[in-house]
């Protein structure tokens, strides 16, 4: 077999692409995934990280709600190490209409979502940070999910099933034969190298950038880029997801995610040209803080770590300027039946929550084209890392008396923690002190998880995601990368880029302790290290 020939090429290293590659690989296809940057760089890594119960959509979009609750239950089984089963609250504040609660609970029940009305006093005990003025509360099976981890685990499983991955490779053209797409031409963004890959089917799983990829293939899909801005706080203040029990609106979800919590989002239509450089505006920051403090008053006095924004890959249905009334339903387009273009499928719409279902739908379409009849097993087979249900169990199996960093490694990698080197002082040394990431864990990410830049490492290990935003860990991790890649100059440049990118997230909220920290980081790098 020529190494450049595959059964299916998947474009896009977000969760949809990674999920599709896993599904295809598990059904025995030879797969190649191409990503112009790194895993989870688009909408996958730029959202709340909310494991939707579906309750948010129950009233307006029953179909999405039903998909969510089904996938929610599946992900708890197959992706335990990516998920935090926190449960969620839908709270009614004095300014909200309590009557909506009834509509909401009924819609949830209809969609199969358990929604239990609880006493506000109980809500305050379950979630001490909730706005104490609440007048109503409903408990739902929300949770949080780490999208980077989920994406990496899907890709890792695909690779374990023989799949290949090309990161930092951008599709610059399609190879056609009459009315069929038979391959893609890529350019490596780090080395500039041009490559060609061949497959009878190509899947466009590029989120909002799928619009551009489709254009490149000569077909048009009407997408609607809707920007959502979010703020990350420096530590967790809530145990449970907190939502407002009202018609979905701006900044009404507070999600605890790993060591932080995230408030969001907004929704603004933006032109396609801005998708690559979305910035958070001061107005959005103000809105997020003001509305967020209504969910949990402690937010107003908690240090903000970063501001960021993602672009929802909505497929436009009408001219709604807010983008909120567009269904977040899954769209799978077979361009052969739609546009007469053979060998090309677009999978888009949907959301992080329903990525597995999207992957299943896309893989079914691929298999139909290839004449393969194999059942989908992704709903029942745990992802690598999720063979144990809890990180306590993982840590206990590996270490007799796990340290804080070892417990943290187990919580990030699940059973993958079995493979990291530990036990000697070198490997157990910490690279990232805020998130407790050890040398062993970084080495694993470099060797086994295709991390070639600092940002790649961040997505896989949480290096640089903590309070100091790369102040200490960035140069240490750069050292390990330089050692692995044998190039110091490149990593020095990478270090500067990484810190610049961290500052980009600090800038919109650059005041108080965050600014002090950024200033201090600058002193360290400029005046102590002389960079």
């Amino acid at each position: 077999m020529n190494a450049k020939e595959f059964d299916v090429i998947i474009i896009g290293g977000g969760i949809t692409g990674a999920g599709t590659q896993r599904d295809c690989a598990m059904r025995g296809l030879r797969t190649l995934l191409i990503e112009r940057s790194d895993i989870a760089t688009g909408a996958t890594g730029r959202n709340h990280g909310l494991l939707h119960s579906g309750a948010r959509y129950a009233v307006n979009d029953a179909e999405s709600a039903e998909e969510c609750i089904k996938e929610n239950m599946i992900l708890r089984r197959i992706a335990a190490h990516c998920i935090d089963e926190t449960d969620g609250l839908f709270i009614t504040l004095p300014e909200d209409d309590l009557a909506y609660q009834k509509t909401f609970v009924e819609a949830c029940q209809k969609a199969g979502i358990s929604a239990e009305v609880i006493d506000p006093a109980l809500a305050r005990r379950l979630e001490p940070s909730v706005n104490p003025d609440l007048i109503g509360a409903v408990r739902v099976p929300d949770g949080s999910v780490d999208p980077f981890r989920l994406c990496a685990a899907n890709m890792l499983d695909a690779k374990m099933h023989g799949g290949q991955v090309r990161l930092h490779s951008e599709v610059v053209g399609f190879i056609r034969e009459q009315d069929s797409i038979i391959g893609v031409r890529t350019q490596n963004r780090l080395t500039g190298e041009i490559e060609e890959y061949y497959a009878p089917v190509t899947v466009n799983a590029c989120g909002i950038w799928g619009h551009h990829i489709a254009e490149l293939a000569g077909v048009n899909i009407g997408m609607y880029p809707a920007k959502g801005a979010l703020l990350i706080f420096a530590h967790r203040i809530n145990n449970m997801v907190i939502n407002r029990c009202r018609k979905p609106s701006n900044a009404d979800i507070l999600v605890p995610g790993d060591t932080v919590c995230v408030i969001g989002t907004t929704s603004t239509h933006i032109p396609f040209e801005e998708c690559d450089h979305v910035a958070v505006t001061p107005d959005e920051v103000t809105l997020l803080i003001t509305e967020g403090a209504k969910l949990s008053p402690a937010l107003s006095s908690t240090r903000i770590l970063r501001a960021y924004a993602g672009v929802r890959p909505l497929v436009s249905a009408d001219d709604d300027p807010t983008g909120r009334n567009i269904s977040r339903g899954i769209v799978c387009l077979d361009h052969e039946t739609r546009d007469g273009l053979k060998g090309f499928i677009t999978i888009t719409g949907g959301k992080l929550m329903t990525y597995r279902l999207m992957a299943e739908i896309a893989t079914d379409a691929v298999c139909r084209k290839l004449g393969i009849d194999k059942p989908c097993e992704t709903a029942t087979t745990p992802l690598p890392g999720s063979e144990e249900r809890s990180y306590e169990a993982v840590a206990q199996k590996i270490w007799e008396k796990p340290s804080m960093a070892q417990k943290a490694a187990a919580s990030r990698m699940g059973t993958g923690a079995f493979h990291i080197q530990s036990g000697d002082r070198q490997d157990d040394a910490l690279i990232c002190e805020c998130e407790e990431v050890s040398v062993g864990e970084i080495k694993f990410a470099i060797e086994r998880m295709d991390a070639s830049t600092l940002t790649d490492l961040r997505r896989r290990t949480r290096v640089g995601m903590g309070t100091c935003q790369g102040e200490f860990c960035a140069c240490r991790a750069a050292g390990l990368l330089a050692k692995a890649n044998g190039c110091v100059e490149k990593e020095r440049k990478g270090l500067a880029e990484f810190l610049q990118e961290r500052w980009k997230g600090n800038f919109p909220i650059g005041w108080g302790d965050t600014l002090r920290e950024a200033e201090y980081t600058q002193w360290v790098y400029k005046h102590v290290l002389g960079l």
Partner: protein
Amino acid sequence: MKLQEYTISKHNFEECMKCTVCTAYCPVLQVNPMYPGPKQAGPDGERLRLKDPYFFNYALKYCMNCKRCEVACPSDVNVADLIQAARIRYDRSKPKLRDRILASTDFMGTLARPFAPVVNGVTRLGVTKSVMDATLKIDHRRSFPKYSSRSFESWLRRHAKEQAAFPEQVAYFHGCYVNYNNPGLGRDLVKVLNALGVGVQLLEKEKCCGIALITNGMSDKATRHATHNIDAIRKAVTDRGLTVVTTSSSCTLTIREEYPNLLGVDNADVRDSVLMATRYIFERLEKGATLRFRTDYHKKIAYHTPCHMERMGWGVFSEKLMRMIPGVEFIQLDSACCGIAGTYGFKKENYEASQAIGAPLFEQIRAVNPDIVACDCETCKWQIEMSTGYTVENPISILADAIES
């Protein structure tokens, strides 16, 4: 679903800039690689513990609570408080019998006092030390504080009438050490204060401040002591209008800082009225009071500022008082921890670390070769006396010796 009851963290934890100066100043980290260090155990670990109490690490027990990290911190993060608060909240291991014995300073004092000569004789014996080492894991190389046959409280009660005759009055929180081990220090304070025209009263039944209870995992009991003591102090301060003076830096820090910060016992209304006696005396002298010093007093005194005294920033008062004494050659020892940290150094597993931490201090004392080492803390005294052979006195006792009787 897991519940984390403590979702809001205090102790200025968010202000940490990760500068790591606390880690550079931690005496434990320099000798014990098992300890994660104040930054890791404090603000860094706190983020993980807020996520899930599971991330609490047993290695936090190696923290001595010397508070040197807090003195070092430029961002005013109460690092040691974060660590101790985490131990209080999350450490579910039961205190060992040994820890209970070490922490119950007042109970042990009450038990030992009637048989003081026997107890003192027995605890000096090698065989006793070996037995305690083997059964309780109290290190056999340690010397134990001696107990006194008469408590300070009973002594002062007998002199209550003459004390009441002085025109001005203070209340004295003497602590377990003065009451059971060294009533002489209490009598020295009475002598100095009387010379200033101030009479000394007892609080209404003081209890042990509780510092050893906190560090040995008995915070419930410590909270009961704290509530009781603050009530007693409140009666003295509010009802009788008295200042409360102390001669132990650790008791003082506990009453002023640990009660509200770790135990949640509010002391805001009386906190400013609880002072180290050296500060109280210095302020009176500043306001014009005078002491008549002996002319034949000639001593070379090396002052070791206890860690908790440094945390309060009050070492300067003790220093100034000693410098006032004519005939004193005063040497300020380098800022360093002696390594004992209350009951910490008594534990077998900490002995080596404890002595290694104190080594530079001991070396400096030997090099200076003073007549007396001065220090406001009783456990530092035991540690320095045991490790160097030099006599250690509280600045109040030095003052009492230097004034005319």
